[in-house]
């Protein structure tokens, strides 16, 4: 009965590789997000989608590309991974913008 699930939980890869993180929510929410939590524990928004439409696109390198095949899924593709991309990436959803966010349990990405 997981509300927001993301896979994988851990991802270890080498610099220059391309990787994807998948996210699914079964809450029936219209809005989904990707947040990044760095080593200092700050959570910062990367992207937001509402009904498959990109709403928020923060200053994120264009190596990061979100894809939303339907309103229950929001995947994150990362090309040419760099050491600085190492972080925990959280997917979240909300009923609408401004409503409380429901987070997944994160994907810890380590780039070596």
């Amino acid at each position: 009965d997981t509300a927001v699930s993301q896979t994988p939980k851990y991802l270890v890869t080498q610099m220059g590789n391309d990787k994807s993180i998948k996210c699914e929510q079964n809450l029936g929410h219209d809005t989904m997000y990707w947040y990044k939590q760095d080593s200092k524990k700050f959570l910062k928004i990367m992207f937001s989608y509402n009904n498959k439409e990109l709403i928020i696109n923060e200053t994120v390198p264009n190596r990061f590309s979100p894809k939303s095949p339907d309103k229950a899924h929001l995947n994150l593709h990362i090309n040419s991974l760099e050491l600085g991309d190492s972080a925990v990436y959280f997917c979240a959803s909300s009923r609408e913008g401004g409503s409380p966010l429901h987070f997944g349990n994160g994907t810890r990405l380590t780039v070596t």
Partner: protein
Amino acid sequence: EDQVTQSPEALRLQEGESSSLNCSYTVSGLRGLFWYRQDPGKGPEFLFTLYSAGEEKEKERLKATLTKKESFLHITAPKPEDSATYLCAVQDPDSWGKLQFGAGTQVVVTP
């Protein structure tokens, strides 16, 4: 341009020892302040939303209050299971759905 500042960074409490966490914010025209709890290896879990000064919300041993410049999360008679990092976030005034998070307060409650 820090909009959300939480203090203290860490708090160690004895079981039953009540205390308060602070979240100060600088956004004008607050459109919502959120409190979350985060356990190690987990995503943040929603606790409360506050919208206007004077508003209070309670859940078990937790009580959140809001003024025009800050919010407090009061933990009354904490138990070890209250150990977690507590995050405060404010709704960005210019971008609906975007939250600005503080760095959190790590709370450890010892028996």
